[in-house]
């Protein structure tokens, strides 16, 4: 074949495969060449010399169709063996069993049906939908549990309280949190304390006869405090209609004023423009219990109201006492301070406080001496703001006002504690209880450590004598 010695000589150099001259393979490989390249030696030599031609001769792809050369066949087989998919397509030829085939056969033998796996996702959504339905039902069913909450803990509360339940669920007081510069753990208690404030007058009133009116007052204010008072308008109107007579006849007026103050205190704080719904309510109801009694009450029935009030307070001195109480209430009460949080109310109050002050019990209250207040203020201001911190006169007035409010608040709390303990006097235990509730005392801080920090030695000695350290 192609007996040209040139070719022979060149090929071993170029192709290692075809190099064996005597092998049968070489013969077969050259077989296909013949039809293509007719035996004319000139052409043959010409064709073999260029690389491109030679490569085309050997690569099976160029020939199209099925590979006729054994190398091509072998290559095809190898490729088929490496890609099992092709083999599968050839369907059962099974020339060479790959690992996959073995595994597939094994799996077929072991688990003839793989169906049950598919069914699981279908089954799941059904129970989910059922559970959802159940949740909705539960939510619907949840409403009854709220009922018990509506009723006030007080035993004697009348049927009116069914309506009152709604104000109990108050929206979270977001405005407070936003206003505060630094939120501390105590601020979490604000809502609770607010409710306590609201309830306290009622509780105190419960012991005395005229509970009903005050509760209504408190409730009305409570409704005020809700931003969505519009919902309750109907209810309020009804209440007003029911209780008009009683309120007018009995009218424990001062107490009402107190609760009203507390109510405003809760309320104006949070929502700057609460009065509008109340006015609407008043328009509905014949009597303006909610708002009207604030000022008109003073003018209306000073004589009538004050008598029950005094009996309740304990020092019933008569009308004069009444007149005394009112201004004291205006000047001293802490509530206006709370109400305003703003300047205008407090300024008015400050002006009032310049006058002779009386406590709510009608006892004249001395001022904290300005010198002491200034000393403390400058001392603490210096501790904060450096040695040159000054406290101006107007600032001092504000501080004095604050301290007078503080004393009123603290002494009310102390009185409550001592009363709860069944004592007539305010004891050290009451003060420690107060400080504990103010979170000044805890497991690590005792009264004595605080006192050591703040008080001069003489006072410390006085303290230690009666109170052995716990």
């Amino acid at each position, binding site marked *: 074949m192609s007996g040209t010695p040139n070719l022979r000589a060149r090929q071993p150099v170029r192709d290692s495969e075809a190099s064996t001259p005597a092998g049968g393979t070489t013969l077969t490989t050259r077989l296909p060449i013949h039809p293509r390249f007719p035996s004319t030696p000139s052409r043959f030599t010409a064709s073999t010399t260029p690389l491109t031609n030679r490569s085309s001769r050997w690569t099976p792809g160029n020939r199209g169709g099925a590979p006729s050369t054994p190398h091509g066949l072998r290559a095809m087989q190898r490729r088929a063996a490496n890609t099992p998919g092709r083999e599968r397509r050839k369907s059962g030829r099974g020339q060479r069993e790959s690992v996959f085939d073995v595994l597939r056969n094994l799996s077929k033998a072991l688990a003839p049906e793989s169906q049950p796996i598919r069914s699981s996702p279908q089954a799941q959504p059904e129970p989910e939908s059922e559970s959802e339905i159940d949740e909705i039902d539960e939510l619907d069913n949840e409403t009854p549990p709220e009922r018990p909450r509506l009723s006030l803990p007080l035993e004697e509360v009348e049927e009116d309280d069914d309506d009152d339940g709604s104000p109990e669920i108050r929206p979270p007081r977001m405005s407070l949190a936003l206003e505060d510069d630094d939120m501390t753990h105590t601020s979490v208690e604000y809502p609770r304390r607010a409710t306590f404030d609201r309830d306290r007058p009622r509780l105190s009133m419960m012991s005395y006869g005229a509970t009903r009116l005050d509760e209504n007052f408190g409730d009305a204010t409570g409704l005020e405090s809700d931003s969505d008072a519009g919902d309750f308008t109907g209810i309020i109107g009804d209440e007003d209609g029911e209780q008009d007579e009683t309120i007018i006849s009995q009218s424990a007026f001062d107490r009402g004023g107190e609760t009203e103050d507390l109510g405003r205190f809760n309320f104006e704080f949070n929502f700057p423009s609460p009065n509008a719904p109340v006015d609407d309510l008043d328009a509905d109801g014949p009597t303006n219990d909610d708002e009207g009694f604030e000022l008109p009450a003073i003018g209306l029935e000073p004589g009538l109201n004050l008598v029950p009030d005094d009996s309740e307070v304990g020092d019933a001195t008569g009308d004069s006492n009444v007149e005394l109480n009112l201004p004291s209430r205006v000047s001293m009460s802490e509530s206006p301070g709370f109400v305003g949080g703003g300047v205008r109310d407090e300024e008015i109050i400050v002006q009032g406080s310049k006058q002779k002050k009386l406590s709510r019990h009608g006892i004249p209250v001395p001022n904290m001496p300005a010198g002491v207040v200034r000393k403390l203020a400058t001392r603490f201001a210096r501790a904060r703001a450096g040695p040159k911190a000054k406290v101006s006169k107007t*600032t001092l007035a504000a501080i004095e006002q604050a301290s007078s*409010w503080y*004393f009123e608040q603290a002494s009310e709390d102390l009185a409550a504690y001592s009363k709860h303990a069944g004592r007539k006097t305010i004891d*050290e235990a009451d003060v*420690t209880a107060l400080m504990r509730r103010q979170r000044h005392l805890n497991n690590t801080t005792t009264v004595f450590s605080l006192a050591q920090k703040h008080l001069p030695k003489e006072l410390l000695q006085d*303290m230690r004598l009666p109170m052995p350290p716990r």
Partner: protein
Amino acid sequence: MAATQKLYPRATVKRIVKAQANRSLSKNADILIFLDYMLFMQELMREASIRSRKAGEKNISPNSVRKVTEKTLRKFKG
């Protein structure tokens, strides 16, 4: 502490609390009350100075004290 050489007017504090609470005080309760009052003042001045500093004032202004008063009183509500 060194600043308060003189004792505070114990009688005055006693009278204030007595009048407000309509109850008598035990012998040394007023010391503790005054201690609490000092804590209150400390807190008040602290808050006021923070507020005034935030507002860019040099000294503590009465306004900042007033703004802070209510918050501090709430903190001291027993």
